[in-house]
C-alpha cells in the first residue's frame, strides 16, 4: 500500500525569503529533547532486540511456555499466543527478521524506484515516456498478484516476501523521484553546474540526486511500517516466513481471529510496529527539516 505521501513533501524547495517566516519546526527544535530522543530511543531498543534478543527476554520464542492465549501478566508481558508461546519473546526475537525484511522491502522499492525515476526524470523524452508507462502498468496490476508472483518466482521465505513487497512499491518511488528530479533538473543551480563545466553524470550525482532525495527518504520511512504489514499479508496467505520463525507481520495477522477473545495478540505487536513507524517518521521529518535548513 501506502504512501506516496509526501509526494511534494518535505524537501521544501528553497525559496528566496521575501517575508521572513521561520518554520514552526525551528521553534520546536528548542525542544529537540523529547522530539528526537524518544524516537531515537524507540529505534535503539528495536535494534537492540534485533541484535541481542536474548538480553531482553529469557523465554524462548519457539517453545510453548504454558497454556495458549494467556492474557498479559508479569511473567508473560504480552501474554501467550495461540500455541502457548511467550508473545513478548516472539516480538523481541522477531525484530531481526522483521526489521531486516522491512528494510529490504523498502530498499528494493527505493533502489529500483529511484533508478527508474531518476533515469526517467534526468534523461527525459522517449526514455521518460517508456519508463513511466512501465510504472503505470505496475500501478495497474493488482499488488496481490504482483507480490505473490514475485514470491513464487523467487521462492518462499521472509526475504523473498520482502522483495515482493518492495517490488510493489517501486512504482510509487519511481513516480516520486521522477517528479523530484524533474523539478531539480530545471533549477538554476543545476544549469549553473553545467556552466561550471559539469558533465551529465557529474551533475546528476553531485546536484540532482542529493537534492531530490529528501522526500523520497521520507516516503521510505513511512513505507517501513506498511512494508511490515504487507509482508504479513503474504505471510497470512502462506507465502511468508515459515513457522516457527517469529515475524511481526505474521504475529499481527495470525492474531486476527482472537481480536474479540485475546485482543493483545494482535494489538501489542501492532503497537510495536506503530511505535517504530512513528519514530522513523519523526526522525525522517527531523532530518528533512535539518537538511532543508542547510544542516548547520
Amino acid at each position, binding site marked *: *500500500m*501506502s*504512501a*506516496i*505521501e*509526501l*509526494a*511534494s*513533501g*518535505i524537501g521544501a524547495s528553497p*525559496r528566496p525569503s521575501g*517575508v521572513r*517566516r521561520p*518554520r514552526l519546526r525551528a521553534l520546536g527544535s528548542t525542544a529537540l529533547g523529547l522530539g528526537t530522543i524518544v524516537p531515537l530511543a524507540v529505534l535503539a531498543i528495536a535494534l537492540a532486540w534485533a541484535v541481542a534478543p536474548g538480553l531482553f527476554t529469557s523465554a524462548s520464542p519457539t517453545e510453548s511456555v504454558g497454556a495458549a492465549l494467556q492474557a498479559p501478566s508479569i511473567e508473560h508481558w504480552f501474554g501467550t499466543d495461540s500455541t502457548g508461546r511467550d508473545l513478548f519473546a516472539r516480538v523481541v526475537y522477531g525484530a531481526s527478521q522483521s526489521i531486516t525484511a522491512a528494510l529490504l522491502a523498502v530498499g528494493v522499492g527505493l533502489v529500483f524506484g529511484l533508478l527508474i525515476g531518476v533515469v526517467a*526524470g534526468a534523461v527525459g523524452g522517449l526514455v521518460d515516456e517508456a519508463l513511466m*508507462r512501465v510504472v*503505470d*502498468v505496475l*500501478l*495497474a*496490476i*493488482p*499488488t*496481490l*498478484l*504482483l507480490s*505473490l*508472483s514475485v514470491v*513464487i*518466482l523467487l521462492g518462499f521465505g521472509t526475504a523473498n516476501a520482502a522483495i515482493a513487497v518492495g517490488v510493489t512499491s517501486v512504482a*510509487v518511488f519511481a*513516480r*516520486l523521484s*521522477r*517528479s*523530484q528530479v*524533474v*523539478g531539480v533538473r*530545471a*533549477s538554476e543551480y543545476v544549469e549553473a553546474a553545467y556552466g561550471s563545466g559539469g558533465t551529465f553524470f557529474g551533475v546528476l550525482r553531485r546536484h540532482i540526486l542529493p537534492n531530490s532525495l529528501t522526500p523520497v527518504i521520507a516516503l521510505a520511512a*513511512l513505507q517501513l*511500517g*506498511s512494508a511490515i*504489514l504487507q509482508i504479513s*499479508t503474504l505471510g497470512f*496467505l502462506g507465502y511468508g516466513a515459515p513457522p516457527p520463525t517469529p515475524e511481526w507481520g505474521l504475529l*499481527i*495477522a495470525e492474531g*486476527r481471529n482472537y*481480536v*474479540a477473545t485475546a485482543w493483545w495478540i*494482535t*494489538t501489542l505487536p*501492532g503497537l510495536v*510496529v*506503530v511505535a517504530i*513507524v*512513528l519514530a522513523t*517518521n*519523526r526522525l525522517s521529518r527531523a532530518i528533512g527539516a535539518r537538511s532543508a535548513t542547510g544542516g548547520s
Partner: protein
Amino acid sequence: MTPIALLRRVGQALLVLVLAYTGAYILLAALPGDAVMARYGSPELGLSEAQLAEIRATYGADRPPLVRYLESIGAFLRGDLGYSAQSGAKVSDLLAEALPSSLALASIALVGAVFLAVVIAFTASYGRGAWLRRVFRNLPPLFVSLPVFWVGIVLIQVFSFKLGLIPVIGASEAQSLVLPALTLMVPIAAPIAQVFLRSIDEVREQPFVAVTQARGASTSWLLWRGVAPNALLPVLTMAGLLFGELVGGAIVTESVFGRTGIGHLTAQAVANRDTPVLLAVVVIATVVFVTINLVVDLLYPLLDPRLRQRTGGSRRDASVAPTAPISQEAAA
C-alpha cells in the same frame, strides 16, 4: 486539451492496457497450480490423476499458454469476458455483482477519506494548541501502520457487537456501507492527509498568506480561502495514485465485512488462478486508473489558473508556482 494531445493520451492508455493485461497473464501463469487444479484438485472431491487429466483436456488447459493467451485476447476484443475458471460463473455476472458495490464503497470511502484528511491536516496546522497540532501531525503515520483488517474487526466489535449500532448482517444497503467505508478510509486518508499537511506547510510560508493576514483575515478565512485552494494540487496528484491503495484496501475490507466487490474478486481470482476473472479485473482496473489520471490532469488547470494556457511549464513558472511543477510532473 488539443485533439492531438487527447489522441496521444488514448494511445498511451491503450498501451498501458495491453501491457497490464499481458503482465497479469504472465504473472498468473507463474503461480503454482492452474484453474483446473483450483477447481477440481481439492482432496475433498477425491478425483484421481486420470480424471483430472481428462478434465484438463476438456478445458484446453493442456494447450500451450501462448495459444490460450491469444485466444483470450480475441475473446476480449469480441467483448466476451468468458467464464470464471473457478466457479464457472459468467465473468460479466461476477463483475455486474461486484462493481456497483465496490464503486459505492470506494467512492464513499474516498469522500470520507478526503474529509478526514482535511480535518487532520487543518487541525495539525491551525488547530488550537501546540499539543493538539502535534498529535494530529502524527496521525498519518499512525494510520499507515494500522492493519486494515484490525481496523475493520475492531470497528465491527465496537459498533456492531458491543454497541449494537449497526448490524453487520441484515443491514440496509446504507447501513452496510458505514463500517467498511470507515475502515477503508483509514489507509486512504493517511497519505492524503500527509500530502495535504506538507502542502499546507509549504503554502502557508508563501508571502501571499501573510499579505492576506495583513488584510485582516481571520484564521478560518486564511485557511479556507487562502491556503487550502493553493495546497490542493499535490493532493489531487495523490488521488490519482491512490487507486491502487483503494483496491488493495478493499481486498481486506471486503473480506472482513463479507461484501462482494472487486477487491474480493481479485483476491479470489488470484487464489484460484482464475485467469478470465483476473484479466477482466485488470482491464477494468487499468481503464479506471487511466481515466482517473486523465481526470486529474484535466482538473489541474481548473484548480490552478497558471496551468491553463501552457502545455509545458516553462523554466520560469517553476519559481512562480512552487506547488505546481511537482503535481504536473507526477501526473505526466
